[in-house]
């Protein structure tokens, strides 16, 4: 019984990780570097959503939209003016640049909002018990939001012109270029979308807990673990990876002290990558 409850808890934790992990993996697919700035953009989105919700009294769903827009816009601007020039210098340089950027942005948030914890204006609900497993209505709500976002992203990638172009650039930039797809436009859109998803992810995390300038940074490694376990560059992989990481961390309580929890995510990475070096759903050559 405890196992089932732990798995349920893992699914709840994982479904929140999935949204920013999709953003991260989509950016990786097109731009080809691990973007550590996702941490600060998640924080920025969380604070934008908080401003809309707690200061301006907007309900949660429109506030999530604000988180998406602000996260996305900051993502677009910082990628254009800060990270893009690094890209020709290689992926590690760009990744290091994004780490330095994330410190800067975290402190922009700190400068304006201070360090105090902030909570969203949202009544808390007690868990409901389904077949002996207790789950939170807010967590179910979050899962629904995550699933809806995943569906939208899949739909966008599969059915729209821009989505197809994005996949083409991800598959083969040279070929896409020949076909007349502007890789720069695709890059901008994926930056907006990826960081917008990070913004939503930051706010979803905040709905569960509370927010402060370190919110995104605390979640960064699990988000990366999710994207890597699932296979960098694979959107369905990010979802699978998030669930694997979420569930593995909770299940670790059965065998290890709780203080070892996050090392399990790394163990999961190591085990899965040793068996499948490209991640669960990643493709060879990525």
């Amino acid at each position, binding site marked *: 019984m405890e196992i089932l409850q732990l798995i349920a808890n893992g699914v709840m934790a994982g479904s929140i990780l999935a949204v920013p992990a999709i953003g991260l993996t989509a950016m990786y697919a097109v731009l080809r570097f691990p973007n550590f700035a996702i941490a600060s953009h998640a924080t920025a989105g969380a604070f934008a959503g908080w401003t809309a919700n707690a200061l301006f009294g907007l309900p949660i769903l429109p506030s999530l939209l604000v988180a998406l827009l602000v996260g996305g816009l900051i993502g677009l601007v910082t990628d254009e003016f800060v990270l893009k020039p690094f890209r020709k210098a290689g*992926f590690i340089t760009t990744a290091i640049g994004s780490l330095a950027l994330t410190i800067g942005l975290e402190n922009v948030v700190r400068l304006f909002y201070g360090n105090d914890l902030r909570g969203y204006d949202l009544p808390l609900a007690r868990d409901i018990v389904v077949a002996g497993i207790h789950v939170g209505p807010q967590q179910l709500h979050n899962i629904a939001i995550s699933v809806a976002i995943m569906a939208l992203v899949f739909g966008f990638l599969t059915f729209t012109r821009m989505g197809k172009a994005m996949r083409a650039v991800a598959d083969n930039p040279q070929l896409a270029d020949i076909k007349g797809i502007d890789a720069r436009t695709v890059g901008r859109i994926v930056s907006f979308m990826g960081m917008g998803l990070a913004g939503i992810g930051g706010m979803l995390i905040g709905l569960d807990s509370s927010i402060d300038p370190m919110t995104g940074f605390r979640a960064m490694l699990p988000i990366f673990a999710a994207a890597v376990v699932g296979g960098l560059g694979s959107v369905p992989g990010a979802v699978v990876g998030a669930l694997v990481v979420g569930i593995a961390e909770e299940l670790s309580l059965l065998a290890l002290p709780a203080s070892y929890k996050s090392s399990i995510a790394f163990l999961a990475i190591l085990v899965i990558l040793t068996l499948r070096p*490209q991640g669960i759903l990643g493709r060879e050559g990525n």
Partner: protein
Amino acid sequence: MEIYILSISIIACIYAIMALGLNVMWGMAGLVNLGLVGSMAVGAYTSALLTTSAGVSIPLGILAGIVAATLFGAVLCLITSRLKEHYLAIVTLGFAEAIRIVASNEIWLTHGTDGISGIPGPFRGTVTTFQYNLIFLAIVAVIALAVYVFCQRILYSPFGRVLHAIRDDEVVVGVAGKDARVFKVQAFAIGSGIIGLAGALYAHYTSFIAPELFVPLITLYVKLSLLAGGVGNNRGAILGAGLVIIILEGTRFLVPYIPYITPPQGAAIRELLLSAGLLIVLRYRVKGLIPEAHDHLTVRPAVLAEAALRRQPA
């Protein structure tokens, strides 16, 4: 004032040694490692534990720290040898975090989050604080110089040339009949050992270590040191470390001149300046202060190697 400058110079030398170690694995052999703080921790903990609990002398302790970190590097490289470099970035980062978690939890061995205090330093307590800092700076500067000479020797040795070849095109090395994996493990182990040495020196200088010391931020600083100074270049590694420390410490003195802010805002602005400073250095010195080509070795910069790797269909 003098002690402050001495102390900051010591830290700069320790960063420089780490940047030199990173250069062996990354600059010379093109091996990605975002977890170098893990090697630092292994070196620091080994030397600290042996000198405090087992009564080992400081030089022997440091030597053991180097050996332990070298072994750690070799094992890490073997475990991750099948992984693609983009994955390596995350896996090594995670590995270093795991080291920190183990150090926090295995209290019987590491004293847990309490940390280890009272780690001896050369002549500490028998000389004045000024003299102690002066002596330590001399020691650490000589060691940094020795590591520099050692790394230069590697760079121009046949071994170094194989590393360059691996970095530029691993397949060619295989065709030439060399087992690239053996060379990679060696490079990673040597680099890790040098970083472990820096960790041990840090432990003996400050006399205290704890798991919270070994956070990814230090990896970032060292990475930036090497990037700023020039990847693949040993002189650049030293220069870059100095530059990073100047940015880290210099921002401290700028903030009090900004009017109308509270100290917490000042702290945020300082980190903002730090981030901007590092990004600007990175942006305008992407090839490093001293480009690798000046070393008269006709090798392409690491960045091109990366591009080459990325082009290859695996």
